[in-house]
């Protein structure tokens, strides 16, 4: 008697599990939206308040689902659920380099009526506006932006360098003062951050990587740019460790006062000013250097898009949610509570932001100059091959010329087969 009950226990447990969890229905009504985004910061309250305000105004319930912070995983989740033709998500975030790809796949609703391309170009920064408007139609709305910056030690460097040569000279000068200090920290690990660093160097050498839809990687400027990155390591201007470094590796070392320069995103700023930071009050921010003068920083950040799979009624509600979350007021919440740079020009004049997030307000020139990585549907397809070759060159496995030739061949193979 008892033993047979025991044998049933697993089944009962499963039944209990099933009873405790309702199956998700594909046919949600129009007054229930699903929003997928990556957590903005440790404290979810300000964002929740923002969403709650929308729920009150519109009478639409919003279910918030978190995407993992690993961009690859987030991309996978979207491709898995959208590619399967599912309706389980209505509004979701997109990296700048995903918009073209997912728009071409037909998974993004056309938002041109609510956000006419002309108005998007006018109200939003040029970089993100260029990424979300594809073929004269709007497929996403910029939410917040990021940009590559040069952090430098004000106590060791009198003037931020505007050229690579000046950067090298400044490092040598600072080392005379502080022996053993590392020079320039950046992100050389085999991942998307390395691509950002590479494109910044490419633009700094006056190059470009796009020819129509086609990626152009094997160019003289690209070879110079990659050679420059490799030389930073080989000549000791950057420590060998940059070939495995991501943002946090660089930020932590810089925060401990171990380096003169660092390339990083704006998120590092408040952390460097932490009371426990060794460089608090000693850090300045400047445009990245170039061969002949400052170079644009790479554009990062996220856009909000609406699933084309959502039925019309829900799509309309979803578009209203996007409008709410990208409004100037929402820009202010994100800037003040989470330190995210607004995607709207006007927000940088917002008195609330100027008062409570002066660092963000001061970044206007940087975000205006920010440039997107190549906007092409093939970028994500080729990014993987590109990262591996860039990493191989930076770590000295191959010459820059050879690495770029290989990357070009792989990118062509992908795009060529696709067409």
């Amino acid at each position, binding site marked *: 008697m008892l033993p047979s009950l025991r044998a049933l226990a697993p089944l009962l447990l499963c039944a209990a599990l099933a009873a405790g969890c309702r199956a998700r229905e594909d046919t949600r009504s129009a007054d229930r939206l699903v929003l997928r985004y990556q957590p903005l910061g440790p404290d979810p309250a300000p964002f929740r308040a923002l969403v709650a305000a929308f729920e009150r105004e519109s009478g639409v319930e919003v279910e918030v689902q978190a995407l993992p912070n690993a961009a*690859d*995983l987030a*991309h*996978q989740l979207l*491709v898995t659920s959208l*590619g399967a033709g599912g309706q389980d998500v209505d509004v979701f975030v997109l990296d700048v380099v995903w918009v073209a*790809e*997912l728009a*071409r*796949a*037909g*998974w993004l609703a056309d938002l041109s009526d609510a956000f006419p391309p002309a108005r998007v170009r006018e109200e939003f920064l040029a970089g993100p506006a260029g990424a979300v408007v594809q073929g004269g139609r709007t497929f996403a709305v910029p939410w917040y932006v990021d940009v590559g910056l040069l952090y430098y030690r004000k106590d060791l460097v009198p003037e931020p360098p505007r050229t690579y040569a000046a950067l090298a000279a400044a490092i040598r000068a600072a080392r005379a003062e502080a022996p053993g200090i*590392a020079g320039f920290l950046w992100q050389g*690990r*085999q*991942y998307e951050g390395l691509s950002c660093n590479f494109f910044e160097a490419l633009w700094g050498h006056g190059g470009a990587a796009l020819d129509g839809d086609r990626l152009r990687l094997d160019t003289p400027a690209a070879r110079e740019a990659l050679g420059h990155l490799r030389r930073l390591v080989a000549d000791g201007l950057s*420590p*060998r*460790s940059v*070939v*495995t*470094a991501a943002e946090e*590796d660089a930020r*932590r*070392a810089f925060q*401990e006062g*171990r380096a003169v320069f660092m390339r990083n995103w704006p998120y590092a700023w408040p952390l460097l000013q932490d009371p426990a930071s060794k460089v608090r009050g000693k850090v300045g921010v400047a445009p990245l250097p170039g061969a002949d003068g400052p170079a644009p920083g790479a554009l990062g950040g996220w856009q909000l898009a609406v699933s084309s799979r959502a039925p019309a009624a829900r799509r309309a509600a979803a578009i209203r949610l996007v409008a709410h979350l990208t409004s100037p007021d929402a820009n202010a919440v994100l800037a003040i509570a989470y330190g995210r740079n607004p995607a709207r020009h006007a927000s940088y004049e917002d008195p609330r932001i100027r008062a409570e997030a002066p660092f963000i307000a001061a970044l206007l020139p940087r975000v205006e100059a920010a440039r997107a990585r190549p906007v092409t*549907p093939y970028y*994500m*397809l*080729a*990014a*993987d*091959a590109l*990262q*591996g*070759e860039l*990493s*191989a*060159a*930076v*770590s*000295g*496995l*191959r010459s820059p010329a050879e690495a770029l030739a290989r990357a070009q061949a792989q990118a062509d193979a*992908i795009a060529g*087969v*696709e067409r």
Partner: protein
Amino acid sequence: MSARGERRLGAALVAPAGAALALVALGPLLATAWLSLRHRVPVLGEDRFVGLANYGALAHDARFLGALANTAYFTALAVALELVLALPLALALHHAGRGRGGIRAAVLVPWILPTVVAAKLWALLLQPDLGLLARIWPDGAGAVLTRPRLALHAAIFVDVWKTTPFVALLLLAGLQAIPEDLARAARVDGASALRVFRSITLPLLRPAILLALLFRSLDAFRVFDVVFVLTEGGPGHTTEPLSLYAYRTLLRAGSFGLGAAISLVTFLCVVAIGLAWLSALGERRPAEAP
């Protein structure tokens, strides 16, 4: 119940497990096999039958061949080290007497720790600037991740740290099945402790060892998390295993057909390894009494 009834009962008992496997594991496997014969990039709206073209492309793909070599090297070295390290540990656990529960709990923790955390812990310890090891040996072990030809060994090391307890537990289960009288008899026969181990324990432990080798080599061949957290396959793909290549092809590049082909090749390698171990296992298992 007649013998035929027993066989029928046996089939009935095996059926649920078989069905579970077929439904949830075999189905996706076949789906993937079919996919590997197609050229399919959902984001580009491409989906057509291409036969074996994906496999043909892999045969000339330097990155694929590199990943295959990385994976094989990782598997061989990690599994060998784990076995060599786990055997004494299993013996110690078996003979520890008082307090063995404590040791068992302690050595199991690395294995229970989520792989992501274990890998991040070691990523922190191995971080080339600030990691603990970098501070102790600035240009030695501490900088291992920056060296293309050494970085893979860091991943192997972390895998060994995390998985040796698993192997030890498998071997412990094997040790517990060996009658103690055998070792006692051999001791009485004048064999030294080492001799008992070599002539009694080791041969009887052979099935457990082969089982551990089987499971670990199959699992190690699919290594993913450790490498992903430590190096993401860099520098320059020198630490990239097949599963990571498949992952990137599927999820980042969204090339499902090619990704499926890589997965399937990985799978076939795993099957080959499995069959090799199985035949080794089979030779050693005496014919079952009827």
